[in-house]
């Protein structure tokens, strides 16, 4: 992912998700990239820069974990503890 360009359709998907789900009072902290507002996150994804790629990676990784059943399996394992 780091060296590749983010496909436009994936950018659109991630941006739509952030636009509709991230309240404006929230900021996202990604280590040395600092704390980012909703607008800054969207701008990085649009540009497809290093921060944008990290944000897309996080979204895709979660989607894969949901789709593969990995997340559900892990959550069941701690549900009764």
């Amino acid at each position, binding site marked *: 992912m780091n060296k590749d360009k983010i496909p436009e359709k994936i950018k659109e998907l991630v941006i739509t998700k952030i636009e509709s789900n991230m309240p404006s009072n*929230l900021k996202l902290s990604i*280590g*040395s*990239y600092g704390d980012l507002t909703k607008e800054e996150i969207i701008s990085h994804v649009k540009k497809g820069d290093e921060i944008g790629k990290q944000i897309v990676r996080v979204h895709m*990784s979660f989607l894969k974990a949901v789709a593969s059943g990995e997340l559900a399996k892990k*959550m069941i394992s701690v549900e009764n503890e």
Partner: protein
Amino acid sequence: MNKGMIITLPRNDYVTEYISQFSSEIIREANKKGIKVKNLKDKKVNQKEFEAVIKKLDYKLIVFNGHGSDKTIEGQNEVLIEYKVNDSILKERITYARSCNAAKVLGKECMKNNKKGCFIGYELPFMFYIDNNWISTPKKDKIAPLFLRPSNLIPISIIKGNSAFHAYENSKKQILKNINKILRKGGKESFLFAEALWNNYIGQVLIGNSSATL
């Protein structure tokens, strides 16, 4: 090596301010258990001071709060630990680094040829959301603890006498519990929170001796 903890508490931006303020839980637990603690705060989180303290006190548990990269862990605006420079000082200790990516190269390399120490950290950027309304009073923030408390559990579990593996597992289980709680509660931001928590879950690794205890 002596039973005790050195913890770095830099505050050079909001990210480090948050993780340092939320570290008070870790220090409180150490005090409760009678574990000696050396706090390195603000400007004192520099390489010279850190190396001097570690040499003098020789504490076994090291907790880093600060920015990081594949090969470095930072303090207050400067590198504290760097691969091939001074990473050998971590070799036989129990290290928890709440620093992005530092487990990737630095953590792996400093645990090579070593049977005693262990390194718990992240191979990915450590992520958390904050409520901007509380940015100047982080402890009042209700969002950040969802991400920071599970990570605090790593040193807290070790302070309580558990093995590094137990501490690592405790933290990971708490991340999953928080994902579960958030998704059940609903709300439009729930998936964003769950994604960031999942990132920390998959990024968190333990390298070295998983049976290590304080």
